């Protein structure tokens, strides 16, 4: 399988949102862990490495699933550094959790030096009867800040894969844009399959402007030197 891989991209994705909105369920479902019974609240933050291959590119996503409980809020800044993607999750059945996404966006903008690609995720679509946030409103807000918007259900595994697939795609796009600038950036703590040589050329950070004003990102690119070809 690895022989087809021409390129490896390592990216760090941060998941933020209120407690109980389903952040951990989302990741566990995506990683095809069994979800038996209820998912325990996250303590601190959990680290899930995962690889997504798209075409000839392998995207190594380092997923940081943070805890939504109030007492861990002060920990969030530890994770902002070097993040490439932020998934802001809210519970479609709790309007307040949607308002708090807006808070997170403000908080992120205030605290990061390097821009992040933002994704907004409305969770628990299966509870459509209790829905408190309309799709219109969520889409409108997402467009306004230049973020992609998704709705999914971790419980019924609806559109969960799509979310992470799109994160990976965005990371590739980001890297594609970066190639033009010929600047590479490798984040620290990268774990890359031994059989593939990774060249670190430059530690500079590139800021590129996306489609919307607010949607800018800094990227990580690993040189596509592969020993198989």
């Amino acid at each position, binding site marked *: 399988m690895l022989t087809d891989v021409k390129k490896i991209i390592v990216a760090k994705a941060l998941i933020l949102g209120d407690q109980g909105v389903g952040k951990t369920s989302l990741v566990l479902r995506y990683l095809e862990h069994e979800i038996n019974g209820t998912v*325990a609240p996250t*303590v601190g933050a959990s680290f899930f490495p995962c690889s997504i291959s798209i075409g000839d590119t392998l995207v190594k996503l380092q997923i940081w699933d943070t805890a939504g409980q*109030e007492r861990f809020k002060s920990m969030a800044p530890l994770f902002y550094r070097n993040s490439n993607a932020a998934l802001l999750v809210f519970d479609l059945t709790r309007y307040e959790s949607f308002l708090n996404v807006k808070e997170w966006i403000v908080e992120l903008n205030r605290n990061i030096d390097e821009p992040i690609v933002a994704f907004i995720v409305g969770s628990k679509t299966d509870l459509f009867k209790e829905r408190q946030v309309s799709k219109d409103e969520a889409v409108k807000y997402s467009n306004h800040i230049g973020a992609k918007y998704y709705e999914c259900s971790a419980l019924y595994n609806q559109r969960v894969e799509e979310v992470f697939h799109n994160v990976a795609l965005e990371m590739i796009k980001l890297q594609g844009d970066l190639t033009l600038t010929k600047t590479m950036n490798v984040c620290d703590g990268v*774990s890359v399959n031994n059989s593939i040589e990774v060249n670190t050329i430059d530690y500079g950070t590139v800021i590129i402007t996306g489609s919307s004003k607010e949607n800018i990102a800094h990227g990580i690119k690993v040189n596509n030197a592969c020993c198989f070809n």
Partner: protein
Amino acid sequence: MATNIEIEPGAALESALVTTESYENFQEMSSSLEEIKNSNFIPSTTDEYLDNCNNLDNDIHLNCSITSTNSKDEEYLQDEEWLSKSKHVFVLSSAGKPIYSRYGNEDRFASYFGIMQALVSFVQADDDSIRSIHAGDTKFVFLFKEPLILVAVSKTEECTLQLTAQLNYVFNQIASTLTLSRLVKIYEQRRNYDLRRLLTGVDRFIDNLLDFSENEPAFTLSAVQCLPLTSSIRDAISAAIIQSCSKIKNVVFGILLAKNQLITLVRMKKYYIHPHDLHLIFNLVQASESFKTVESCWAPICLPRFDSSGFLYGHVSYLAEDCQACLILLTVEGDAFSSLSEAKQRIVERLRRGSCLEAINESLASREESCMEVGFPELRHYIYKSKSTAQFYQPHISAPYSINSRRLVNIYKQAHYKLHCPTRPLKLLFERTPQDAILAWDTRGFELYAVLEPLIETSSAISTVGRLLNWIKKREDKLFHLNAPTF
């Protein structure tokens, strides 16, 4: 009692754990965090803690029953199930705001919290403090630790001191999640703050801690039990942790544990961990199912005895799919996760190469021989605590206690109390009931609690205990962690 043992089993010159007397109160030990961060290693002086439990003058004995008032939220007083609980624990702010109740929703009996607060502050007004109220077979035990009031209402056989110690643990658990400094500051700023906002999810840890402290001798003894391993394996495990972390600065403790037993503990030079802090870590691991489903976790942990003013950061992970031992690497650096992740990988590789994972699994799976099988037919169960290392050993619980382990736990708790009762502590205790006999012995180096057949002769009980000490001595390398490895 004469034994031919030179040095008591499980003793060591240096211990990784702080050794303590049993009924001491919470008191911070040092401000180790700042020290480490400034890399300015001045060993902290450990003051002798004020043991304000020792004074029992403030125990009030009542012969009345508590009568209820007719307020709307008194419905719990009608609730048979709620009333029948053997031990209630409540936490409130010094302003009387409910924070935690072990059973039931604390909002539904807010007026009780008011009464508790009134009692405490009433006595407080005379520069005195209320310790306990005894009404029939129910004890009301109070612990007032700025800014919180903790109350236990217990029908168990545990004594006031043991209940106070449990309340201390609850306080420490709360301090551990927020840090004591923050807790104090919150109430300085807003006396009426509703702390539950910050403690969502922490009730689970307190619940678990209370169950844990009721059933585990570790809490009563202020000690930990080690997973039996040959000393060469244990040393190899410690070495793997030390070598893998050698280039990472400010790792304070490396702890490996499984099934509530310590496998090894590596510490930074000059720093020690208090058994109470270690118990909080055990509790964290035990109560966090979520750790099992993730590759690794990064959690802020305040160890109140180590430094109650700040957080350490813990890299928490299970070693491998095929080895369910939990590794906790504690550092003062908030951004050290990735270097510790790499260290963890190296540790696992080293342990695999050295066949240590198998050894751990083997020990976890092994059925220990009962006292009978190893040649002590009259001995049913025992606990041996080495004081100098704050470690204890007990065999698996076997018949007749396998069906009612609570009974055994109670025997030990009462014997422990008699050895440590502040007014008249015993050195040696031999008691017989129709069901069992207990011999408890407190020496300078160890405590031994042996539960024997009820009809055993005194002389043969004594000789059994003598032989048992020899037996433990021969196995001390395996049963205890005798080295205190450092980074």
